């Protein structure tokens, strides 16, 4: 913080959280201006690699709000909007996952982080896998949540894929509530309005083109051939009631990634946000482990 804060907080009724405040800002990387939110690490996490969060398709970083709140407030967290989504400018041309991954690494370097942990959910999980392989010296630990291996995976049922093919659910709260149970599963089947609220409360809808670029980037991409190359300790999480990513996918990932551990939970596709209280500690425990070089045992 370059500015001196001239405000004093002497009133006990206004409690500042023990961590540093989050700052949203625009950062331009390779000519594309991206909206980024950075919460610097404090206390024990001052020098620890921050956690980079990669979001699902078409969703701006606000959706991670509940999850970030459930984390230790002193942990460094970086969230960003993929170009063409939310508050980030659309890229001039379609991109590939490899190009986006290289762009994200440049973004982190520009923010001053040489090393970081990465967590990806759903579409962002694909990006996280690519990052782990492509920037192996930069990425320390990997968390994959409700994600698959791209084109070569056990697919969701066609009805779900049809709903996923357009960004309509991000633009139309009524429609979102109607389909939330079908596509997200878990608690969304009983409380669909929660999903609508999550996707609509404070999230930003980017242009439709951004969504289609994201779909296009994942088309034909698969991490299956290079899962063996992910050397980082990896936590694979998946829900037992996830219509988009059938549970067999995380199982397969955990089998193929050398140092992976599997954590299956009772829930759906976006449980990380809706049941953050239960899942955040699992992520924290994994991130705080001391690095050992013996292969982690597979849990089934």
């Amino acid at each position, binding site marked *: 913080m*370059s*500015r*001196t*804060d*001239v*405000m*004093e*907080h*002497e*009133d006990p*009724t*206004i409690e500042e959280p023990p961590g540093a*405040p*989050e*700052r*949203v*800002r*625009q*950062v*331009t990387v390779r*000519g*594309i*201006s991206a*909206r980024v*939110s950075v919460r610097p690490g404090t206390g024990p996490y001052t020098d620890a690699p921050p956690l980079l969060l990669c979001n699902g398709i078409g969703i701006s970083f606000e959706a991670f709000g509940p999850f970030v709140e459930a984390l230790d407030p002193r942990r460094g967290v970086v969230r960003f909007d993929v170009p063409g989504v*939310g*508050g*980030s*400018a*659309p890229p*001039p*041309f379609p991109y590939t996952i490899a190009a986006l991954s290289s762009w994200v690494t440049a973004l982190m370097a520009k923010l001053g982080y040489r090393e970081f942990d990465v967590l990806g959910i759903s579409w962002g999980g694909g990006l996280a896998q690519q990052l782990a392989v492509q920037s192996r010296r930069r990425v320390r630990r990997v968390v994959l949540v409700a994600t698959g291996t791209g084109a070569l995976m056990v697919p969701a049922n066609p009805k779900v894929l049809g709903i996923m093919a357009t960004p309509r659910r991000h*633009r*139309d*709260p009524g429609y979102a509530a109607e389909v939330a149970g079908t596509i997200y599963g878990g608690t969304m089947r009983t409380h669909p309005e929660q999903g609508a609220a999550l996707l*609509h409360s404070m999230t*930003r*809808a*980017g242009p439709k083109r951004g969504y289609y670029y994201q779909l296009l980037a994942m088309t034909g991409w698969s991490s299956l051939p290079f899962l063996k190359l992910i050397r980082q300790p990896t936590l694979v999480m998946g829900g037992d009631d996830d219509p988009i990513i059938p549970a067999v996918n995380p199982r397969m990932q955990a089998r193929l990634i050398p140092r992976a551990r599997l954590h299956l939970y009772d829930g759906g596709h976006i449980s990380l946000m809706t049941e953050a209280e239960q899942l955040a500690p699992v992520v924290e425990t994994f991130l705080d482990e001391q690095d050992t070089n013996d292969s982690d045992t597979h849990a089934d």
Partner: protein
Amino acid sequence: MSTIQRIEQERSRDHGRLDATDVDPDDHALETPMDMILADAGQSPLRRMVPGMSGVRAVASLATKPRTVARRTAGLAAELVRVGVGRSEVAPARSDKRWGDEAWEKNPFFKRTMQGYLAWGEAMRELVDDADLDWADGQRMGFIVDNIVEALAPTNAPVLNPTVLKRTIDTGGGNFLNGGRRFLRDYATAPRVPSMVESDAFSVGEDLAMTPGKVVLRTELFELIEYAPQTDKVRTIPLLIVPPTINKYYIIDLAPERSMVEHLVRSGLQVYVMSWRNPDSRHADWNLDAYGAAILEAMDAANQITRTTSVSLLGICSGGIITSMLMGHLAATDQLDKVSAYSLMVTVLDQGRAGTTSALLSHKVAAAAVARSEEKGYLDGRTLAEIFAWLRPTDLIWRYWINNYLMGRPPKAFDILYWNADPVRMTAGMHHDFLDLALRNALVEPGKGHMLGSLVDLSQVTTENYVVAGIADHLCSWESCYQSTQMLGGPSTFVLSTSGHIAAMVNPPGNPKASFRTSEENPPTTQEWLEQASKKKGTWWDDYAGWVGDRSGEWRGKPVKAGSSEYPPVCDAPGTFVHDR
């Protein structure tokens, strides 16, 4: 020389001074006059270049005057012959920066090219004048002919521009490689105009919008920023600023020492600013009422935090229109005591003939525009940016065309242009309401506009008010701004600042060229006002800080902390909404 002539001189001088490198750059395109710009957003800039019925009428009119046309043609032919033999006296206007290169003066070929072009352009413009069209058609045809003439300037062609030729030799053609790259990048995404500033030239919160403060309230529509006091004593009554809804708020908190907010905070005011949310398709139904209610909400928060019962309101441009309608609502519901002073900046309430643009507005076009934004849910700020740019092609398009693509250089870093390239979407509801206001010119007559269920009658707004306009503002002409003093019921102070729409607002102290005019009284016409107005050196910021300070209650000790228990600080200024693209 009469005052009127002097004013015209100043106006044209200010119009001519358009170099972004100037200390006090002139206004570069931005929002309003609502009507035409908002209506035109329904069609592409190319569509606006189609003369339509105006063209038909112009041709028909010229056809009835064969003699005039023949005289013009003969005059042009004679002039072109003189140019050819090198005896022409045609020279560019002093303010025309396009012909700076020595070659235009010394090289016979280039000199003839320039003179031929100038003579032809002049003849084209005179033909439009000859056609004797009515005001609206004349404006429209003038706009189209201007655009064509300026697009065909030899300076825009790589082989006819000596500066570009020299650069090509210097870089071995690298300028076109660079320029080509820039061209692709610019034209791949809207707005499809040459970029006037690098996207990473500045960054909000790092070198723009730096005045310290906290967001004390965040709603769906806005973030309310409370600025930290910088004096030991502050005025009791807070000042709430309502920025435009078509651009980001940070034009009033541009950079340190170039920030109106900072200036007002340093004069001892408690300043609150609303930072509007950049809406998207989900917010299509946010209309004037929603924005009016938001201002009320912000007023209540500022009152609760400062433990007061009234605020001073300051509305800018479209924010000023909403504020004025809200004042109408407060007057109708007998709540005017909630506002102790009320100010408008570059705001046009009487849109009868707001500058160059309303000529182009028609019901049909407006309806098409509204239909288009309703389909999308919003009006894209980038579309507006394109329209603004084409309003002043030489300064806002061709200059950057030459610099970015032909010379292959990055555009200069300039904060106002960065802000200008950071537009906000407008909800379909707002778009509809604004156009409706403009078409009916609804604020002029009592009871034609409505806000939060009340009929708006501005003559009932008896609060003291302060109205600011820019002399070279071609979007909200100062004459139109002046009408507010006649429409409002309260005593008005009218201030006419130097420069245009934006530069009038960014008017920091220390600029030797800055001055403003003001007068004790506000007679019915602008001419009478000019006759009696006196000119003062310096910036009107100081005058305004004094005026609003006098109406902001007693001095008291500064608050030790931001917010209150009911409105705890959410995050630091500039908040999060300002970052939404």
